[in-house]
């Protein structure tokens, strides 16, 4: 699509004596439908079109972007990237060598791509979620459809030439119900690199998605705030995903490793978790999540094993951090849009399976809490992390008892992964086109998941002494 422009950039870069240049063209669309209490509150398309150009000169990096794709403007953008890189003087940045990817990367087996599906069909999906929840007595219903697709082309002076066609489609619903002055909120999302045909079966049916949110809302009306203190915590797959992402994924990102500021820096081969812990980050997994075939530096994604049976095995790397650490990129260089320079980001991060069943884990737990349905989380570079469950249950003598709500869990990564003593066999991986992960002002769609886990000691930030 942009081959001619790319060619002109590469030729000019070479004539200007630039050591390395990477041009990333984007023409993508984000479709939104927001259906609130029976009315369309937002319907539209958000088209993102432009180019981001990264240059390396004397070990310093400059990145410039423009939304105007006229040739003279694009070449001026290259010169701007060069100008600002030069102001940095001599630096130590390099990019790692890669196996050169070429050609087109697109998601296979999609029958009803959102780009060609009728708008009415999308509207019908959100209406079905909404109507179901309303019929079940929910007072407020916010139903969403979102889809992201298009083309991202990456050209580099060392020969990468790829066209990536990403896809992420999802339905989500938030509901609120009231009973005797109590408020219960519930939510559920199903999403993946799929066509609209995915929403015609099993757990993906709009009615099934709505039902999950409705039952969560009802449980939350009955729920009380959690107890506070250090407790045994059983973590359902969606929560395990946030745990993997927050507690571990961020700290294994190559930028924090290269600067030596992550608690995981310099510890490859060390035992940092219990035997039950294996954590991976991958571009594609058949069990779910978002499919990322190639990253925004044009590098084909590969599976990164971060922790294997408790031992730290690897980090997440893009071309720059791989060069700094003297190794190869794992294909984790991602940018929110053409306006952003690729930085190290996660893709699908999850705990691998263990050999327990979820029932066995619960019945083996004398006292504790089970947590489900994440509201999000965060980690700090000293290893402090938190993640929050919307709903949970007290466990007493191996049985689930009364529900608890808005449970914040906190701990320090260097201690906490040692307390994971059980993982179940079933691994589930989730993603969402609504929200995503934020890092240094850039958003990325990520997948996360895992089996049901048990941690024998986690701080629960409840209310009451």
């Amino acid at each position, binding site marked *: 699509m942009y081959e001619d422009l790319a060619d002109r950039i590469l030729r000019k870069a070479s004539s200007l004596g630039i050591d390395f240049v990477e041009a990333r063209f984007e023409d993508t669309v984000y479709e939104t439908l927001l259906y609130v209490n029976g009315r369309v509150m937002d319907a539209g398309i958000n088209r993102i079109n432009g180019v981001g150009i990264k240059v390396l000169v004397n070990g310093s990096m400059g990145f410039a972007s*423009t939304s105007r794709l006229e040739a003279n403007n694009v070449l001026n953008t290259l010169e701007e990237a060069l100008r600002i890189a030069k102001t940095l003087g001599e630096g130590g940045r390099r990019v790692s060598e890669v196996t050169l990817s070429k050609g087109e990367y697109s998601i296979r087996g999609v029958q009803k791509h959102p780009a060609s599906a009728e708008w009415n069909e999308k509207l019908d999906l959100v209406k079905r979620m909404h109507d179901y929840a309303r019929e079940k007595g929910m007072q407020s219903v916010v139903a969403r459809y979102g889809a992201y697709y298009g083309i991202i082309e990456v050209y580099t002076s060392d020969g990468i030439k790829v066209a990536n066609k990403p896809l992420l489609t999802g339905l989500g619903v938030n509901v609120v119900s009231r009973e005797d002055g109590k408020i219960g909120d519930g939510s559920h999302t199903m999403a993946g690199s799929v066509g609209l045909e995915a929403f015609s079966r099993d757990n993906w049916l709009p009615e099934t998605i709505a039902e999950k949110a409705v039952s969560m809302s009802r449980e939350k009306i009955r729920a009380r705030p959690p107890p506070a203190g250090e407790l045994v915590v059983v973590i359902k797959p969606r929560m395990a995903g946030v745990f993997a992402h927050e507690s571990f994924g961020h700290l294994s990102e190559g930028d924090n490793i290269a600067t030596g500021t992550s608690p995981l820096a310099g510890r490859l081969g060390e035992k940092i978790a219990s035997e039950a812990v294996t954590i991976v980050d991958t571009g594609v997994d058949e069990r779910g999540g978002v499919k990322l075939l190639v990253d925004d530096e044009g590098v084909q994604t590969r599976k990164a094993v971060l922790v294997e049976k408790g031992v730290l095995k690897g980090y997440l790397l893009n071309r720059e951090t791989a060069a700094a650490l003297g190794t190869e990129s794992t294909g984790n260089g991602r940018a929110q849009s053409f306006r952003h320079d690729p930085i190290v980001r996660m893709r699908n991060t999850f705990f691998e399976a263990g050999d327990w069943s979820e029932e066995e884990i619960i019945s083996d737990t004398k006292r504790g809490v089970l947590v489900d349905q994440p509201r999000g989380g965060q980690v*700090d570079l000293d290893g402090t992390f*938190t993640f929050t469950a919307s709903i949970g249950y007290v466990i007493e003598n191996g049985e689930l008892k009364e529900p608890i709500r808005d449970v914040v869990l906190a701990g320090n990564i260097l201690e906490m992964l040692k307390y994971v003593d059980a993982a179940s066999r079933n691994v589930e991986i989730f993603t969402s086109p609504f929200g995503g992960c934020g890092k240094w002002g850039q958003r990325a769609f990520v997948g996360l998941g895992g089996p049901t886990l048990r941690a024998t000691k986690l701080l629960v930030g409840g209310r009451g002494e």
Partner: protein
Amino acid sequence: MSEYRYLVDKLLKRALELGVDEAEIALNRSISRDVKAEGRSFKATSKADETIWVRVAIGKKVVGATATGLVEDKLLSLVEKTVDIARVSSEDPYWSGFPEPNEPRHRWVGFDEGIATLDTPFFLENIRLAIDEAESRDSRLKTARASASLTVSWNVVANTRGVWTEDRGTYMNFMLYLKAKDMGRESTGFGYIVSRSLVTDFKEVVEDSVKYALDGLRASKFGRSIIAPVVMSPEVAAELLFNVLVPSLFASRVQEGLSPLAGKVGKQIASESFSLVDDGTLPGGLRTSLYDSEGVPRRRTVLVEKGVLKGFLYNTYTARRDKVESTGNASRRATMVDISHTNLVLARGKSTQEELLSEAKVFLDGYLMSAHTVNPITGDFSVVVTNPYLIENGEVKPLQPVTIAGNIYEILRNNPLASRLSEQTPYGIVTPYLLLRDITVTG
């Protein structure tokens, strides 16, 4: 921005030709530059962006679209596509049109040529200085990340009712994020400045980040759970209110049953010591502008006066639905026109910071983690505070991060006290130090 008038008029005209009843075009042009440091490795970025928003209404069917790059034929086809979708969309019975033209209510434009003409070397030099200074204070300190940036932004909003508004602004950021490590103990420290006008002195950023990181190294574990009075720093208070209270003041959330404040106008929702004003006209305010995202003039809106709820924040759609005037709080979120606060100003109190601290068990400073996970529908919150301090016998001792939990409405009804001096925070909230009672602190 009048150079865009021809294009904007053409797009509005095209929409009308295609049979829409009304149309609106908003346009933003921005330039931003920054220098980022990962450790001592620097990179520089420079962005030039143009974004356009289109909204069309056919009867009560309304659809929006956005695109980057202002190329005429691309935009004409965007308008056509938007109209196509509007034809098959469904009606919103509450829709009652775009706003009418109106004059601005104040004159302050937060546009500083001193920022608009800054270049990369200034940032590079000051980041280097800040890193050198911070790392020379203590050998256990290391820079994780630093950045300095500027944004210059121009906005136009126009609609087929005759609105044509122009606005512009400058913004500057500087931040330093340090990591400290000593014999297996690890901590972080963060400092920042955000400003609408040029800042050339970044000592405060260095002082803050160094202090938090070193305090973190000698912090002790709280090791218990108590319900106690606490003092929140302006940053902590603002981040909490921003996430757990502020969304419930948006008329959109009130109307859709997502705010616990629905139906409470005229009622006491907080103690008399608590008052809150949204002021989109505040000189120097991070979110001050002449107009909102629909071209409605910014104004000052009293939200809570001596604990009594006085009203909500409106855009044109929600205002007409409630038969009131828009408060000029429209904001754009992708294709949707939603609501956001401008500068929320909390009433100041009569105490000094020290007097407040003498009544508290814990001082909550630094920033919050997982603040986005609180529940604005109920007002319940449970979050981690990065830099808490224990107050004991008049001494203030650093603690490792703690979680705090409570319900914002119960807390605001429990006689919160404010300090005499306020600070502007990056959340668009201007707040004093707050003494809040009955908060569960666990660590």
